[in-house]
């Protein structure tokens, strides 16, 4: 393990200075400003700033729409994560043989990671388009049901879930493939010699051995679905219909930017901050435990 080796009175400070400077100006200052602003009622042009203490928070926590947004965010993130991981794991397990060209497949499956969620959303928007899209067209042969995602919340949610899972899929698959390749063949052979069938082998050995990968992908996908799908929602559904796709980060942005209620929006950011801190703390604690140097 590396220990401090060099001695120099000023060099380390110079080395960390750029990062610290940017961190203070663009992280701490806004973070504290957010905290501060959340305690105020602020007018758009800055002419009025009225201290109201926890007023924004009580307003948030007393609003059933806010809790609906929490539920939507959590539900949406869980579905995207679980669906994404389950399908990726299934496919990876089925595909886990020593075959030629695995790297080629990996490339062909990984590339959607490079597509911005908003762009993925636009493409799926068209696939789902009620007038011209290929999916409603095909479905019209099966059923008369109008998949109008302007009005039907569950259709809108399905649309963005599919777009999000699609985008993340290759990434999840690549990780599971790598994880599976890292499991020594001897362990699985020993198990089959012991009489364990493939399903049993999977649940008793493979899945537990993959748990670090699963945990890592779980937190990553949850974070992605919680925050980075903003672009997807902004480009496709704008939080509607009703508030069916109004996730927390979209709400916070909308109230601040469209609604110009800066204090209220800052309060929502503060609550998001606490959620993320909890999530990251749990992840870090778990990750550090599993790693040995």
């Amino acid at each position: 393990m590396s220990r401090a080796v060099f001695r120099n009175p000023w060099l380390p400070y110079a080395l960390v200075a750029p990062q610290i400077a940017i961190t203070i100006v663009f992280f701490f200052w806004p973070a504290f400003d957010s905290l501060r602003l959340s305690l105020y009622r602020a007018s758009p042009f800055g002419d009025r700033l009225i201290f109201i203490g926890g007023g924004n928070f009580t307003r948030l926590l007393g609003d059933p729409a806010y809790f609906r947004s929490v539920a939507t965010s959590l539900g949406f993130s869980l579905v995207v994560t679980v669906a994404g991981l389950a399908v990726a794991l299934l496919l990876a397990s089925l595909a886990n043989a020593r075959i030629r060209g695995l790297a080629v497949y990996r490339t062909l499956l990984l590339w959607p990671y490079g597509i911005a969620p908003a762009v993925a959303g636009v493409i799926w928007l068209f696939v789902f388009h009620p007038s011209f899209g290929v999916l409603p067209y095909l479905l019209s042969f099966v059923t008369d049901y109008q998949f109008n995602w302007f009005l039907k919340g569950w259709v809108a949610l399905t649309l963005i879930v599919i777009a999000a899972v699609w985008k993340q899929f290759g990434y999840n698959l690549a990780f599971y493939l790598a994880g599976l390749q890292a499991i020594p063949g001897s362990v699985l052979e020993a198990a089959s010699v012991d009489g364990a069938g493939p399903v049993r082998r999977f649940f008793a050995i493979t899945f537990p051995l993959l748990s670090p990968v699963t945990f890592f992908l779980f937190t990553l996908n949850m974070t992605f679905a919680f925050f980075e799908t903003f672009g997807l929602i902004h480009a496709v559904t704008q939080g509607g219909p009703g508030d069916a796709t109004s996730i927390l980060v979209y709400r916070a942005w909308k109230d601040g930017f469209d609604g110009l209620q800066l204090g209220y929006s800052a309060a929502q950011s503060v609550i998001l901050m606490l959620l993320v801190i909890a999530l990251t703390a749990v992840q870090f604690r778990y990750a550090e435990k599993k790693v040995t140097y």
Partner: protein
Amino acid sequence: MTRSALSVLVAAAVVLTGVPSTSRAATEIQFWHAMTAVLGERVNDIANKFNASQSEYVVKAVHKGSYPETLNAAIAAYRAKQPLHIVQVFEVGTQTMLSSGAVYPVYQLMKDHGVAIDWNDLISPVKGYYSSTGGNLYSMPFNSSTPILYYHKDHFKKAGLPDKPPATWDAVESMARKLKTAGVKCPFSSAWPSWVLVENMHAYHDQPFADNRNGFDGLATTLKINGPFGVKMMERLARGAKDGWFTYGGRLNKAEALMTAGECGIFTTSSAYIGNLARASEGKFAWGTGPLPRLAGFPQGNSIIGGATLWVMRGGKPEEYKGVAQFFKYLASTENQAWWAGVTGYLPLTNSTAKALEASGHYVKNPHQKTAVVQMNAGKTTPNSQGIRLGNFNSVRDAIEEQMENIFSGNKTAKQGLDDAVAKSNDILKEFAALYR
């Protein structure tokens, strides 16, 4: 980082972004607007015409995004003390601007610079909407429209309907049902759901939208859209959604995509849509216009205007304001007003302009542009139809449209949805009022 180092960086950034420096002989005036496509070109045209007509001032028209984005840009610029003189703000931002303390009232600007404007020549819906309690205009009317009805002549023929627009909501319903039977995908729809179907319908039938005379007598804190009229209107539309003769097309003006694609039989939206519809339908289908339909059993009011006005921001230099006053004087001339209204399809803002357009035979060549004018002239100006002025109106409109979606999808009854819209909106309005107690 020292202040001077920061300004060096900022200057470098300015150079990088290619913003031209203001070291020209003429005084530069920044004019931020939200007009896109054809309308954006017309804005550039009028700015260029002004610039060509004199050499002391240069108006730089910059497209800053949508209306909310333009407003946010203005706020950011104001707070960072960046130069910005004129900003186009949508009508729902009126109260926000009025309360802000950041504006230089237009009537004051004109008076200070000795520019005489005949404010009384403004058509009364425009004058009424944008005047303060003292009868003075704080912003310069620029682009105003009002909703009208459009209908697809070919679909009407297919459904065996006469070539005439429906005049009442009963007629809309019966015609839409026939259109549905004839296989029209979107028998009836509307863009701007809240503006057309709630705000305008209330004013059109002399019903109050909010307390304090729709916010003109003081900051409004309660909506009144869940009364018998509002519920009756909404119940009909909910029935339409359920029975399939009303096709909901999304919030704001998303539904225009349906009419543009030629799918709708009957459609209500802003009169400013005429230009786009003409372009989209060319060689494809014929269409007509008519006034908004009425609901039987309710009094007559008038439709209200939408659109935007030009606001002048504080914090500029005296010679810049001189230029702004000159630009506004230029805009206000009847000749330029007639040109602007003629090429854009927006309402003629003054009586003189309306007369000039009539006299030049403009309406003979563009009959559809007259529909809105006729509609407004035929209406009655009442306290309820003067306009609506709410703080955070943008959020209120969104709250209403959100509940409308719940109603049209069948999740809530009309009364329930309207009650919820009122509750949420009152909350928003009270927040705003609390800022200025």
